[in-house]
């Protein structure tokens, strides 16, 4: 636990040592606002809720979260610090978890800084604040899922651009796995159970059900399992190919 906290602190601080933190947060807030107001028609709908704001989070995350996660391990490989890190008396699991939590907290911070829109909607009307809170939780969980996938992709390469592209592609697959575009790949040859399983992997389905204000145990379990599986994969990838 102590080691996870040490890795976490170093990693979290490293976001703020470069302009990365500022650039990421500003772009995230601007885009989140622009999507909600222009594409989502926040005012025009005349409803006191944040649906137009949260509806665009999956798409926003699709490009922004890989930008955050691509450096997690690829940079360690490039700079050779992976050798330093893996010869310190910490386990690989502690390093993987500490770094992931730092990235997740950072994403959570960016998400928390969208609070003015919550104040705005409360000023304009009387929204269901419970549902808004649930949607925030759902959004944070989804960000964690994207980040865990990104951590694993980052562990496979020393090239951050490759890590970025792989992460976008895989996350896109997970986002759309409930849609005909992905399911079509399986229809015709795979049994119905497999198609249902693939469909149930969709980020969108689980996120949408949480953002309606219902925190279902199955959705929590889904994101929890997703994060755990991808982090385990990260550790396995790192262990298999440490040197190159």
């Amino acid at each position, binding site marked *: 636990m102590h080691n996870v906290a040490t*890795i976490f602190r170093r990693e979290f601080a490293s976001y703020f040592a470069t302009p990365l933190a500022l650039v990421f947060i500003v772009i995230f807030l601007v885009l989140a606002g622009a999507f909600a107001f222009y594409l989502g028609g926040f005012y025009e709908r005349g409803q006191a809720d944040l649906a137009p704001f949260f509806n665009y989070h999956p798409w926003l995350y699709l490009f922004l979260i890989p930008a955050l996660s691509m450096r997690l391990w690829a940079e360690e490989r490039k700079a050779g610090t992976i050798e330093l890190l893996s010869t310190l*008396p910490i386990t690989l699991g502690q390093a993987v978890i500490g770094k992931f939590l730092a990235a997740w907290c950072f994403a959570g911070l960016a998400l928390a800084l969208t609070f003015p829109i919550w104040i705005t909607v409360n000023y304009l009307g009387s929204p269901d604040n419970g549902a808004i809170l649930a949607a925030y939780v759902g959004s944070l969980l989804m960000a964690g899922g994207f980040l865990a996938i990104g951590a694993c992709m980052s562990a496979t390469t020393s090239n951050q651009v490759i890590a970025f592209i792989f992460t976008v592609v895989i996350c896109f697959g997970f986002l759309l796995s409930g849609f005909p575009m992905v399911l079509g790949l399986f229809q015709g040859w795979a049994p119905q159970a497999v198609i249902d399983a693939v469909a149930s992997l969709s980020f969108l389905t689980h996120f949408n059900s949480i953002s309606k204000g219902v925190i279902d145990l199955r959705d929590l379990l889904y994101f929890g399992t997703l994060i755990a599986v991808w982090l385990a994969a990260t550790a396995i990838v790192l262990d298999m190919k440490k*040197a190159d």
Partner: protein
Amino acid sequence: MIEINHLTKRYGGLTAVDDLSFSVQPGEVLGFLGPNGAGKSTTMKMITGFLAPTSGSVSVCGHDVDAAPLAAKACMGYLPEGAPAYGEMTVRGFLSFIADVRGLSGERRKQRLDDVTGRLALGSVQEQMIETLSKGFKRRVGLAQALLHDPPVLILDEPTDGLDPNQKHEVRTLINAMAKDKIIVISTHILEEVDAVCNRAIIIANGRILADDTPQKLAQRAPSGRLDEVFRSITTAAAPANHQGAVAHA
């Protein structure tokens, strides 16, 4: 002590380290010599637990590196090749991070941090970001990181690479001062360094030990009594056809 038993590392068809066995006792400063690509760094990476050997075993301070990696790593300080460090951190921030990971706290932590910053003359760059430092300072930050917890075993991969003659001299003085009750393994291709700090030298090429002796006795093997001649004659004679390019280049 360090015990290495039949250590082998293969990458596909290439054998980087070939059935290496030796042990190092406290008080020994072992110079690891060899041409580029001889397997020096690969051996050090396996001793420190970064790379898993294809076969064979390493034990450090009685802890098997494969079976008890954390205990083995805790008693080692390691300067990897190129002295990697987190460029966006300040020297102070980086050393504090290492102190935290090494479990140093309270008065001892402060005393150890002061000790290494003093010994390696890092006081003037404490608040500077590591990526803005010169090569010599970066190397010294790497050394400070390895020495921080005052480990009984030090593995230093080219500790004086990139240092100017004065800094080289200071690092050698530092190694000599610590040598008495520690195990120190350094890799280098600067032969005068072996004379200056080592009381034992192992010459390897193509992953095999070609000579293991004191630097003085090794030097006597050449008519001129010069270590570099011994080095050249041993390592070029051992090079098989497919390695000649690399050796000639070195």
